[in-house]
């Protein structure tokens, strides 16, 4: 009952100074809106990165030639990784569901009068599953076709579009750097990532790529798919050990290959994006703080202005607590209004950013709760001192105040 009356009193005094209330709340509005929109942008960037990485599959261990620490050595020029390494891994490492050796290079494709430049990826029959591709039409090549070095190709959806248009590519002969290859399948579209288009490539047996197309004896990477993520570290150790033995490298020496997995990427990317989000949110939180100080400032002015009113209230029997509550409610109400409008504005900003900038933004319930809780907290925190000052006024002096 009393609280409701105090609430009404606070509301009345805010309405009596509508412009001032709005300007005071504006600090909170901007603060909350920036917290919400900044976090939504950061969160959007994070989710986009994560989903991009997840497209590769998270349960993949990748082995590349060259030392990891030496960034200046390009993996492509190091020729230490062989197809036999991949076969050995498949044979000897337990708890894995597939191994796919890869050799790739860009090449000229030709069908009829149409040309396109694309990546030719020589790989094993398990690559389709490991790399999370699905067959659209036809089929992927078989183990037998890999062994017998067949000139067959499975084409990505972008290549289909570029070379065949609406035609069915299955059974057609295409020229890869002048050699004929039979198209036996096409993959479903995966969607372009920010830095490359996984659909803009064709897959041929790794043996064919080595012997007939690239004329090389090494491979550029090996993907190993793990059955259970829990075994990941164990398997990485096994791979490292096996390859060291095969390459004759002692444990104390630097190896000529490196083993990494996509979940590491995922974590470090996720961490980086999280830091980014916190940074943005932190900067925005400063404006919230400034908004809070604005509230305190106005409350102090308001209390000086209303010294006499406070004196009257004390004289007719208001307790300290009730005076304090009245002014606290007022400051919380301002920050509440500011918080509410700020949330709306923040959502609007993040929508606009994703519409105009084409960025993905995610307004999470948590960020709304955070911003709202923060703003109410600021209302209480910065309202407390002025309210206490009001409650501690000497009624005789306050009544005499003009």
């Amino acid at each position: 009952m009393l609280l409701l009356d105090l609430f009404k009193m606070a509301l009345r005094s805010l309405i009596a100074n509508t412009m001032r209330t709005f300007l005071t709340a504006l600090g909170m509005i901007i603060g909350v809106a920036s917290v919400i929109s900044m976090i939504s942008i950061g969160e959007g960037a994070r989710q986009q990165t994560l989903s991009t990485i997840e497209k590769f599959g998270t349960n993949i261990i990748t082995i590349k030639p060259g030392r990891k620490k030496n960034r200046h050595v390009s993996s492509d020029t190091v020729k230490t990784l062989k197809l036999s390494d991949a076969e050995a891994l498949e044979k000897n490492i337990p708890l894995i569901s597939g191994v796919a050796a890869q050799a790739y290079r860009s090449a000229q494709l030709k069908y009829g009068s149409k040309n396109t430049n694309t990546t030719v990826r020589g790989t094993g029959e398990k690559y389709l599953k490991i790399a999370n591709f699905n067959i659209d039409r036809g089929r992927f090549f078989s183990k037998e076709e890999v062994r017998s070095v067949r000139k067959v190709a499975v084409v990505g959806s972008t290549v289909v579009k570029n070379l065949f248009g609406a035609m069915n590519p299955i059974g057609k002969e295409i020229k890869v750097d002048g050699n004929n290859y039979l198209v036996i399948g096409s993959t479903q579209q995966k969607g372009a990532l920010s830095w490359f288009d996984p659909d803009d490539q064709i897959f041929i047996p790794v043996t064919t790529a080595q012997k007939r197309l690239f004329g090389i004896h090494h491979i550029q990477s090996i993907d190993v798919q793990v059955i259970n993520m829990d075994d990941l570290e164990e398997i990485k150790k096994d791979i490292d050990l096996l390859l060291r033995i095969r390459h004759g490298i002692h444990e104390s020496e630097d190896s000529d290959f490196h083993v990494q997995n996509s979940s590491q990427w995922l974590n470090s990317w996720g961490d980086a994006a999280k830091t980014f989000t916190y940074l943005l949110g932190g900067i925005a939180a400063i404006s919230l703080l400034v908004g809070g100080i604005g509230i305190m400032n106005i409350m102090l002015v308001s209390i000086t202005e209303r010294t006499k009113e406070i004196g009257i209230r004390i004289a007719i029997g208001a307790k300290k607590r009730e005076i304090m509550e009245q002014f606290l409610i007022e400051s919380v109400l301002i920050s509440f209004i500011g918080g509410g409008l700020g949330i709306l504005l923040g959502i609007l900003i993040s929508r606009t950013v994703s519409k105009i900038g084409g960025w993905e933004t995610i307004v999470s319930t948590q960020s709304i709760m955070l911003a709202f809780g923060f703003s109410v907290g600021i209302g209480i925190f910065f309202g407390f001192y002025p309210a206490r000052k009001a409650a501690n006024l000497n009624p005789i002096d306050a009544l005499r105040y003009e």
Partner: protein
Amino acid sequence: MIEISNLSKTYLLGNVPVHAINDISFRINTGEFVAIMGPSGSGKSTLLNLLGCLDLPSSGTYLLEKFNIRSLKPNQLAEVRNKRIGFVFQNFNLLPRASALENVELPLIYGRTKNSRKIAIEALNKVGLSERYKHRPNELSGGERQRVAIARSIVNKPAIVLADEPTGNLDTNTGKGIMDIFSMLNNQGTTVIVVTHEKDTASVTKRTIEMKDGIIDRDIKTEELSY
């Protein structure tokens, strides 16, 4: 009702102690109508603040009904001010943004009294303001504002009504009207104490306490007051 014994109030003005009230004692019984008079600086305002529990004495005792005011805690004092004392001020002291009715309701709200609206209307009717409830103070005349203030002071049915120069800001006729209301309230049993320096105002009362230099100079029946 009110029992004051050896009451003193000393302020420090810089380092110099000022004895605003110096060891005074008196009694006021239920139903009395008292004027407190005296020149400015005589201590009558200080006495009023003490009687109204806005200030605490330096020494001595103040008994209001069963309460020993000096021993009460701030919240209890607030409650005494709310329930047992009604204030009327020279410059009305109404809340400018609240209507007449809301001003009168305010003590009831702080006292957590139910049916505050109905009780407040009754109080307004009692002081002769049966309309204009919804008006704000700045839409009312001085006399009407003081009536609202009186309604506010009696709305909680206090033991005493303390009025500080209630006619000071009003013309003679309006002031008379206000004093008539106090007389009427007194006739109905309310104890009224009026601080004033105007003899006309004091003449309505039944007893006059004259202050001078922090002590009681005279305590007489008002009719004995020489003009």
